[in-house]
């Protein structure tokens, strides 16, 4: 049976964990991080931060009972359907809607390369867990400003997402599940921008190259509709909390090319989100926030050092380095109350809440039988409710899936094929045109054709019951094209 719960792969039991205990654990990890930053070597501090973020994000990735938005959000379900159908049929050129070409994505390419569909579908759930610390490592390895690199990494790990950007639906972590391709490409972007900034440090080309990289990546159109202009201006200014003020203070002392490009171009992209230019607000916010955080390290490092110098006068802290004491104070002061510690996607995001609900066992069992007992090339006729399930969970193409593709060009012809198949008449050339071979029906489906009970189809001359499954699922084969159950 197709396992679509990440926790299942790790052998973790299903069900909601104790949120209070989880939050207290995060708090403890945050305090430990602050304590370690007092004396430990910088890589250990970085590692402690990564443990904190991995726990904060990983908990929710594991809690998802299905990939984020699967069979809930049409965009996610569409690409998932394409992945499953590509993996199930072995024909990457065919779309999940029979007779339509495939809309290729990075994920369907992976499926075409032979990566199992379950793994491809689960990857986006894992991405935020991996990318957040990976970006910190990129900053650690590549950022030009070596003196402030530890603080930059810590701040990125803790504050890449804030409450206000999360509420606006553009938080780096909170909205990452809904932007898997952007998340995946963010890491190479950051690495390229930081590397370019470092290599071209002191050169006039540094800023334009970095700005071009950020601009090219940020201008990639996203699926999110544009936000109203005042909202994009709020995102530019007030939604950034203290980061804009701190970055402006930092900018007075000069910024390196990578940081300046991220702030400047990122800020322009944020403003452009309020204009009908198709800019993806998540991408804009991600680059802008990264730039603001790196720019803010200047004043924060200064402040941390000064605070540290004041604190090391106290006996327990006497043996520590002032700068480290300041960083520890910053972490202790702000991380336990930060967004990641308090993040609860179930309350913040309806799609995440729905994704915490597991798929019905009966449904999964029925789809598994379809996968095992029907021909991979056979096309299914299913109700609008179950057509996406057939494509995503069973990997079979469907004749119609109005919740995913509202009106294909030949909608009327498809409807005629549906009508004929359900009436018991041989769909003939129409059936052959679409490869129509199976009907999935459950109680309540196709009432518009006078079908009161799924068993009614048994009387139809051209339909042969292939199997029934718990939950009222019945699969019929269109007899005119009857072949052995498996290829």
């Amino acid at each position, binding site marked *: 049976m197709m396992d679509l719960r990440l926790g299942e792969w790790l052998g973790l039991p299903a069900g909601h964990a104790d*949120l*209070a205990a989880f939050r207290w654990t995060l708090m403890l990890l945050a305090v430990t991080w602050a304590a370690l930053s007092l004396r430990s070597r910088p890589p250990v501090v970085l590692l402690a931060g990564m443990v904190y973020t991995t726990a904060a994000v990983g908990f929710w990735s594991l809690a998802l009972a299905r990939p984020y938005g699967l069979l809930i959000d049409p965009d996610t379900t569409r690409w998932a359907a394409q992945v499953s159908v590509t993996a199930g049929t072995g024909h990457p050129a065919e779309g999940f809607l029979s007779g339509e070409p495939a809309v290729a994505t990075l994920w369907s390419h992976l499926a075409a390369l032979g990566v199992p569909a379950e793994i491809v579908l689960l990857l986006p759930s894992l991405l935020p867990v991996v990318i957040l610390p990976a970006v910190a490592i990129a900053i650690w390895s590549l950022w030009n400003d070596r003196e402030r690199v530890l603080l930059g990494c810590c701040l990125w790990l803790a504050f890449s997402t804030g*409450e206000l950007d999360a*509420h606006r639906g553009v938080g780096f972590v909170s909205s990452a599940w809904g932007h898997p391709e952007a998340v995946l490409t963010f890491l190479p972007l950051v690495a390229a921008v930081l590397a370019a900034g470092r290599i071209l440090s002191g050169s006039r080309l540094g800023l334009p190259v970095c700005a071009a990289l950020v601009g090219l990546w940020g201008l990639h159109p996203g699926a999110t509709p544009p936000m*109203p202009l005042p909202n994009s201006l709020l995102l530019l*200014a007030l939604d950034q*909390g*203290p980061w804009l003020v701190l970055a402006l203070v930092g900018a007075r002392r000069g910024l390196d090319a990578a940081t300046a490009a991220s702030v400047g171009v990122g800020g322009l992209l944020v403003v452009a989100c309020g204009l009908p230019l198709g800019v993806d607000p998540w991408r804009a916010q991600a680059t802008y926030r990264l730039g603001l955080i790196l720019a803010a390290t200047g004043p924060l490092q200064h402040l941390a050092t000064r605070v540290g110098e*004041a604190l090391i006068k106290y006996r327990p802290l006497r043996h520590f380095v002032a700068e480290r004491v300041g960083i520890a104070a910053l972490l202790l*002061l702000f991380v336990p109350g930060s967004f990641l510690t308090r993040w609860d996607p179930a309350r913040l995001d309806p799609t995440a809440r729905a994704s915490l609900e597991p798929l019905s066992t009966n449904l999964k069992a029925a789809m598994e039988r379809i996968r095992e007992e029907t021909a991979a090339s056979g096309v299914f006729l299913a109700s609008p409710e179950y057509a996406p399930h057939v494509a995503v969970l069973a990997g079979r193409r469907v004749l119609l899936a109005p919740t995913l593709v509202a009106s294909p060009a030949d909608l009327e012809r498809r409807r005629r094929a549906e009508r004929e198949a359900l009436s018991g008449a041989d769909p003939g050339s129409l059936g052959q045109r679409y490869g129509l071979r199976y009907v999935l029906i459950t109680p309540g489906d196709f009432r518009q054709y006078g079908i009161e009970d799924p068993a009614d189809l048994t009387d139809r001359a051209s339909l042969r019951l292939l199997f029934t499954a718990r939950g009222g699922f019945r699969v019929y084969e269109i007899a005119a094209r009857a072949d052995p159950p498996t290829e």
Partner: protein
Amino acid sequence: MVPEETVTEAGLDSLLSWARLLTGGVSILWILASARVRRAEWILAAVVSWCVYLWAISNLPLGRMYAVGVGHDRLMNLALCTPVAAGSPFYETYQVGQLNFEPFWSLFVAAISGWSADRVLLLYPVLALLVVVGFAVSFYVSPRALSNCEEGHWSGWEKVFAIYFALMFSTGPADHLEMYRSVWNVSFLLKPNHNLGLILLPPLLATLSGVPSWSRRLGAALLLHLIGWVFVIFWAYVVLGLLFYVALSRRHGKGRTAAVDVATVLGINLVLLSPYLFILLTRYSFLLHGPRLDLASVLDQAMTLGLGQGFVFLLALLGGKTLYSRADDLSRLWLSLALGAVSAWVGYMGLALTIGATETDEIYYFVRVMVGVMAGIGAWNVAHRTGELLAVPKDLRPAALLLVSFPLALPAWWDPVQMDRYFAGSRAPLPDSLVKTMSFIREGTEPEAAFLAVGEDARFVAGLGGRRVLYDGYLTPPPNIAERSRLQWAVLVEGDRAAARALRAQYGVRYVLISDRLMADYPTAQLRPFAARPGWRKVFPAGSIPDAELEVFELEATASSESAGAGIPAGRKGG
């Protein structure tokens, strides 16, 4: 109030975003100007302006009074006041014959409305703002700002930052997703009746902190006793805080004086309030069992109140330490109040776990406000110290603290559309039939007349109509609830005229509000058409309107009541 159809949801979202941008811009300019003006009052004015802005964005776009008909609290609180303004006794709730456990608020609202139910409905939305601003002003002037010198304890600067943090940092951006939601809307906007007690706290503590004298003790006792009448739960928190005050004063060799002060104040209070407290503990006790909290919820709340508040909590710890290190009485009193609040919360959590104590939300909000006050003092301390470290001139430190903290403050991010379910629920106007019926009740029935109505309709009769009811089934049951229930059943279901006469004689019940809700509660009542019942006379709406949503019937009309109603609108006469 803006009718719903004039502003679409998308338009409203845009309007509020522009308003927030404008507020942000003006605030930054104001803060920059404070570097030149250099007066604490200038910053106090900014805090008050932010309160006005936050109140305005939460109230002006609404189609009805904030939170009326959304949840229970607002309508119930209104129901406790409007009948009093219409002439009912202030010591009774809107259930006839039941003593009011928060009588001061009803009296206060009735008095400032000039005993006019219509004016109550106009004034009530503004009261939340007045109370919040009242708290700010009361805190600032109690005692009078010692000086604008920043080193002084309880200087104008320190107090203004305590106010700023108490009002603008007691709510966090993610609070609306938590169990008790946000202090700003669920406490400050929704419950001005409780927060009136906050206004009385600063003068109480200022009075207690003066030079020991019997007149001062008496003044403090009267103020504390007033808090008891306003909101007795606050009174209990303060009493607990005063016990901490005695304990903390011993450290400074003032334990004896403090003990005499507190004993006198509490003694006078116990004498004045004992009958009231007895009634409260026996009839409305917080020991009444409610749903029990589970341990996970308690732990979660502990985190929300603690490190979950992040820098605000740590600033509060620093503020507490600052107050602890001082020798003056006022510092010790505020610290004691905060410690009392935290102790009360711990106690409440114990009770909530074991027996399911009610009102756990109130202590949560109170602790958040106290943490805000402490955090403001801590923030001023930090600004002072950091200013020295970074060589920021003294005169610029208030502006610098404001500039750094403003992006995290409530006006910079509060979005009622997303964060306030009362706001969303109050966008639509009340149904026209309800408004007209309540208007008739206010204008066309006798002020002393009581109604038979059920559930939320009963609260509408009281809150918007200004008339009391027999009982509503939500508020704590009134005396003789079994008899009331029996009589109501007899009148509605059996059409018993003797029961109707008994209701009229014993409880002053003269009218019935027939509604869908009543028909659902008493389904067999409709077997006997109301208009055809002997002794029943329809008084609203006039004429025969098929499927009218709400109808008012007069019970057992007598000649005297007919003549008493001579001046009422034609609608009633025509019934």
